[in-house]
């Protein structure tokens, strides 16, 4: 008997030899437990993320084993650290390059709101250039807080409907940021 814990099955109908649930839930379960993070680390929070990835805290426990440094093969963008105005177009470019479905976590005060750097050179929160799903507070957040942010995102991912990315509301959201969807 192995001590590996299995992810909890979504609610469904169970009977002799079968288990039925909705496709949304099954896919959500798979997505939530295999998020591929793209660490977009610029400053201090990046060092705390290093600790989160490292041996003591081990983000891999939550299915995020493979940090992807290529935006094409990632679905969870973790923005860690101050984003200066010089960097903002780069961040937006990285977001646009990611394939759908994609989620964004703003880690730390700087990424969430500009933090203590209310200055001419700093973007006052990444939500001015890309949509954000989860904000993690702290300057920098402790590794536990970053893990918690990832878990909160998993909740969002689990409950997202498959059709969400095709809805006019979602397209309007992206339009608001000047990101055009072709479909």
């Amino acid at each position, binding site marked *: 008997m192995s001590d590996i814990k299995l992810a909890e099955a979504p609610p469904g109908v169970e009977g002799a030899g079968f288990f039925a649930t909705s496709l949304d839930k099954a896919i959500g379960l798979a997505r939530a437990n295999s998020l591929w993070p793209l660490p977009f680390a610029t400053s201090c929070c990046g060092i705390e993320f290093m600790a989160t990835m490292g041996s003591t805290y081990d983000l891999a426990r939550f299915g995020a084993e493979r940090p992807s440094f290529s935006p094409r093969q990632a679905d969870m963008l973790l923005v860690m650290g101050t984003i200066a*105005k*010089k960097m903002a177009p780069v961040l937006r470019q990285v977001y646009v390059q990611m394939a759908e479905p994609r989620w964004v976590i703003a880690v730390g005060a700087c990424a969430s709101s500009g933090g203590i750097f*209310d*200055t*001419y*050179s700093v973007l*006052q*929160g990444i939500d001015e250039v890309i949509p954000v799903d989860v904000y993690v507070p702290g300057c920098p957040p402790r590794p536990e807080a970053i893990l918690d942010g990832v878990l909160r995102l998993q909740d969002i991912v689990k409950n997202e409907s498959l059709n969400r990315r095709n809805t006019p509301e979602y397209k309007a959201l992206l339009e608001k940021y000047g990101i055009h969807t072709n479909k």
Partner: protein
Amino acid sequence: MENSFLLEKLQENFPDKIVEIPDAHHLLTVLVDVEDVIDILRFLKGSNELQFIHLTDITAAHYPHLEKEFAIVYHIHSLVHNIRIRVKVFLDGPNPEIPTATVVWKGANWMERETYDFFGVNFLGHPDLRRILNVDDMDVFPMRKEYPLEDPNRVDKKDLYFGR
């Protein structure tokens, strides 16, 4: 090596061109003219007796209330004799110009670019005088006192909530 000896040496070689500014913290501070500054820096570095081989820092300060608005400050360190010197030059605004120190130390390159970026000080003869930290299309020199710290165009932070 004592500060007094260093000052004597400088005054010997550059008579009437060196003004000492008293400093409470045992760092010899001299005020020089913009025409002589490179010669003096060259002398400090090249002199066998002094050997100021390490350029610690170049920066500037803005004094809008003074007649000469900009001060360029060089910190130089003689590693051999373990003594530091601060060389100051005051420049006229609003378009200050000073010859580049890259001819003496290559390391002056980025320090001068940073100073240009922040204060708009034009270093004549600099090989690559571009902005370094700020975005290229910025049209102000943000460390000048007249420019605010915050971005005046930002919309989400009301001064009222920050006690301003």
